[in-house]
């Protein structure tokens, strides 16, 4: 028998009717976007610097004012009233319209930048021309579609970051974390690379917090050459790029879990946590989604590892007297490194794998080793079975553009705000692998206090069924957890706490929960 879900009745009034001020704020924000839209239809604004400032300011202050109206007059606390009644946050018409527009924007951005006014030679037109003054101010060069995108991205993180801080102003973890992503986006992703370009024109564009494999193109030939050509500073940056994945990342992930990156530093995470916050409840929590997630995201890791290996291999030489790192030395090195990691994990952490994860790990390892071996014995020519260029191009198209941009961000209002981070990001998968097996981070479940209400699972942007662990009295140690802290914030009974503690006792599970007869608990739990 099914009873109609009356809570979705048309008579149910969404609690948050827009106030007059909020309506004005919406108009203000949209007028800023409208200026950009006019510019992209080649309305030639005079005084571009002024119009761009007006536009960006209007967008920023529209969001700012809207948020102030929404939250500042209310007492501090959880602000999820009406989330599932509003069209935009409950996959209604507005959500679809927003999703389609964003997706359209990404398609134009990635594949048809000329529609935005990008000129191959000569001066820019359209919306890109509108951004020329700002770009010249920072780097001295005219704007590109990426500069336009970067500017809007930064404005979005800053404006919606302020909104997020207002919304969670009772929660210092959320406030500090959000200030962190706002800082890293503005300084590291936006301003520093532009200024570096001004100081040293030879340096490749380098967002220092963007680490391989997220930054899958970092070790391509043109970038390596550019790094080396720029002297000491370039070399330092190249070394930093290698050190950040092999040294810095493992240390920080051990100490704090992958959240140090995914929800404190990363730009993709930054946008998801700020502009994407209204959509976090849309992630799919079903067991089947988890199964898909594990196969897809780990396949991307395998893909990016093969691709990068192939790309580096393709430009290395054969003669070890000229340079120590030859094609063969490199390939053997990669094989040794992967074998070492695989052996260590199998030796010490095998027990922590579930059966299918174990098969997956073995499967992937065998595939990579076979390919390396196959290549090694089959002589020169293509890398593995493919051309490195083909691999690179397909990765860039499928993962770099379609997955991270078009689906990952364009579909925020439909699939939730962390689709890319959950299903596609190889960086998140690698950090997650370590987080699961070798990190001090966990979400502690507070004894027997869980009432299975489901707020934690509903608001988990990564689609983790947090409640499934909490109601068993089990700590949450999941590779996908980005440590955003919202499960802990929305829990009405104080059950969840993100913390870094000793590895001993990190997981733990109880059949009988704390609160019941002590004898029964020990008896049953030891069994």
């Amino acid at each position: 028998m099914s009873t109609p879900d009356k809570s979705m009745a048309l008579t149910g009034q969404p609690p948050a009717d827009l106030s007059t001020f909020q309506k004005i704020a919406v108009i203000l924000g949209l007028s800023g976007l409208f200026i950009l839209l006019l510019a992209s239809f080649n309305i030639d604004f005079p005084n571009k610097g002024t119009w761009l400032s007006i536009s960006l300011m209007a967008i920023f202050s529209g969001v700012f004012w809207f948020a102030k109206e929404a939250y500042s007059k209310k007492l501090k606390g959880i602000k999820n009233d009406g989330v599932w009644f509003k069209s935009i946050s409950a996959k209604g018409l507005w959500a679809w319209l927003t999703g389609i527009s964003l997706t359209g924007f990404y398609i134009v951005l990635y594949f048809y930048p000329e529609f935005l006014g990008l000129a191959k030679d000569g001066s820019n037109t359209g919306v890109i021309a509108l951004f020329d003054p700002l770009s010249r101010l920072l780097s001295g060069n005219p704007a590109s579609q990426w500069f336009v995108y970067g500017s809007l991205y930064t404005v979005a993180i800053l404006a919606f970051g302020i909104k997020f801080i207002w919304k969670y102003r009772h929660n210092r973890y959320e406030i500090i974390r959000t200030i962190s992503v706002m800082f890293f986006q503005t300084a590291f992703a936006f301003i520093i690379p532009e200024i570096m370009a001004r100081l040293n024109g030879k340096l490749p564009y380098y967002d220092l917090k963007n680490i391989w494999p997220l930054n899958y193109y970092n070790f391509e030939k043109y970038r390596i050459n550019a790094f080396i050509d720029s002297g000491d500073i370039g070399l330092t940056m190249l070394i930093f790029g290698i050190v950040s994945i092999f040294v810095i990342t493992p240390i920080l992930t051990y100490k704090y879990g992958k959240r140090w990156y995914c929800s404190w530093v990363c730009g993709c995470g930054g946008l998801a946590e700020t502009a994407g916050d209204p959509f976090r409840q849309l992630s799919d929590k079903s067991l089947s989604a988890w199964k898909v997630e594990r196969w897809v995201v780990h396949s991307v890791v395998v893909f990016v590892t093969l691709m990068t290996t192939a790309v580096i291999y393709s430009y290395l030489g054969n003669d070890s007297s000229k340079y120590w790192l030859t094609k063969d030395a490199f390939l053997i090195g990669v094989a040794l490194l992967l074998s070492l990691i695989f052996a260590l994990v199998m030796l010490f952490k095998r027990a922590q794998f579930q059966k299918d994860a174990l098969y997956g790990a073995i499967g992937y390892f065998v595939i990579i080793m076979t390919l390396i071996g196959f290549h090694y014995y089959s002589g020169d020519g293509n890398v593995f079975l493919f051309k490195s260029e083909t691999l690179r191009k397909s990765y860039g198209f499928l993962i770099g553009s379609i997955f991270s941009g078009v689906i990952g961000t364009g579909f925020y209002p439909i699939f939730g705000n962390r689709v890319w981070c959950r299903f596609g990001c190889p960086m998140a998968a690698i950090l997650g692998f370590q987080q699961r097996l070798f990190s001090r981070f966990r979400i502690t479940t507070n004894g027997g206090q869980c009432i299975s209400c489901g707020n934690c699972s509903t608001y988990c942007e990564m689609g983790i069924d947090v409640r499934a662990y909490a109601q068993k009295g089990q700590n949450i140690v999941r590779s996908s957890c980005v440590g955003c802290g919202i499960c802990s914030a929305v829990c009405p009974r104080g059950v969840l706490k993100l913390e870094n503690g000793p590895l001993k006792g990190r997981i733990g599970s109880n059949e009988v929960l704390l609160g019941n007869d002590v004898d029964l608990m020990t008896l049953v739990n030891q069994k």
Partner: protein
Amino acid sequence: MESIVIIGNGVAGVTAARHIRKNSNKRITIISAESDHFFSRTALMYVYMGHMKFEHLKPYEDWFWKKNRIELIRGFVRKVDDNNKELFFEDDRVIKYDKLILATGSKPNKFGWPGQDLKGVQGLYSKQDLDLLEMNAPNKKVCRRAVIVGGGLIGIELAEMLRSRDIPVTFLVREKSFWDVVLPDGDSGMINEHILEHHIDLRLETNLVEILADDYGRAKAIVTDKGETIECQMVGLTPGVSPNISFLKDSGIELGKGIKVNRFLETNIKDIYAIGDCAEQLEPIGNRRPIEAVWYTGRMMGETVARTICETRTEYKPGHWFNSAKFLDIEYQTYGWVFNNNGKKDYEEHFHWRHASEKICLTIAFHKETRKFLGINTFGIRMRHEIFDEWLNKGRGVNHVIKYLKDANFDPEFYTKYENEIAAKFNADFDTDIEPEKKSWKRIFAIG
């Protein structure tokens, strides 16, 4: 194969079913008149508030039941025939059982007020009540004012729900302060202030006299014992709950307020057990009441009865009392026993600390002479269950609790900590000289 039938798919019944399945191959059937699948009753409020959809309240996906071979029957049992071990449904279906677990929960109290059965008058307990609320108070145009009668946990939840849709709420509380049948005055007083902050019209020491009807038999106003008539379109009756057992009247099962059970959760009839809200202990356990309508106790009884059914006859022995709730924006947790000002034991001393500006406070109860720690209420500070359980097990003194309170703090990272302030107040109140110790993972993990 032995057939276990459970009436009621709430947390007690479902916990019993899960544990029976874990430890045996018995046939398990769960009967519910309320819903197809188990959901978290305590979370119903969030559906009305738009935080979640009903489907989010289900702790297990719908395939879970089939996979674990737990049969689900939607229907209302009107009669238990314990001689033939048969259950009769309202629609005349009959099923047999070998062992029967009654986990039928509660129903809202009604105290015979004139007009209590009018349209627009309701309690808040079941999924059907939630649907009814959606009809009675969909928005502030249909429901221009709501009156809530009964100042307990459900009352304040209902007030929060209605306020989330901007509906004006008058809240009648019989006591001189909100929930002061349980909370000490300091704690209760802070909640009063918070209720007012949320623009809820709180009327303390005010009782309902009658509910007035309009020409269509709908509630149009209420009259209080202060002689005031308050116009309203919806009346929420939330003066507690009592066991939902009327269908057992003609069975041979011994009933009091609830279904009488011994410490093994057995009724007077062999092979029939009762757990959760509907069970009434023949002898109260420690300071506990004979009927405990609490999520956690329902779950614990489920764990225990499953063990009795699958392996060894096991006594229900709940550990140290704990509970939690949320009053609007203020989270509440309690461990051990802290009694209100009237119910305070003669040996019970209280220490109360409250933040100067924030709505944060705690009350610690301890033994006057032995200074043994008895219990804690905390508001706006989360505490570690394991640590307090351990301190209660070991019979720690109150000085120990104040000294190591940082170990027990469970607030999110970077939150302002108040343990030093709390210790200073304690030192001043009780002329002690306690230096709080730093949080230690070693001590925290030494437990268990």
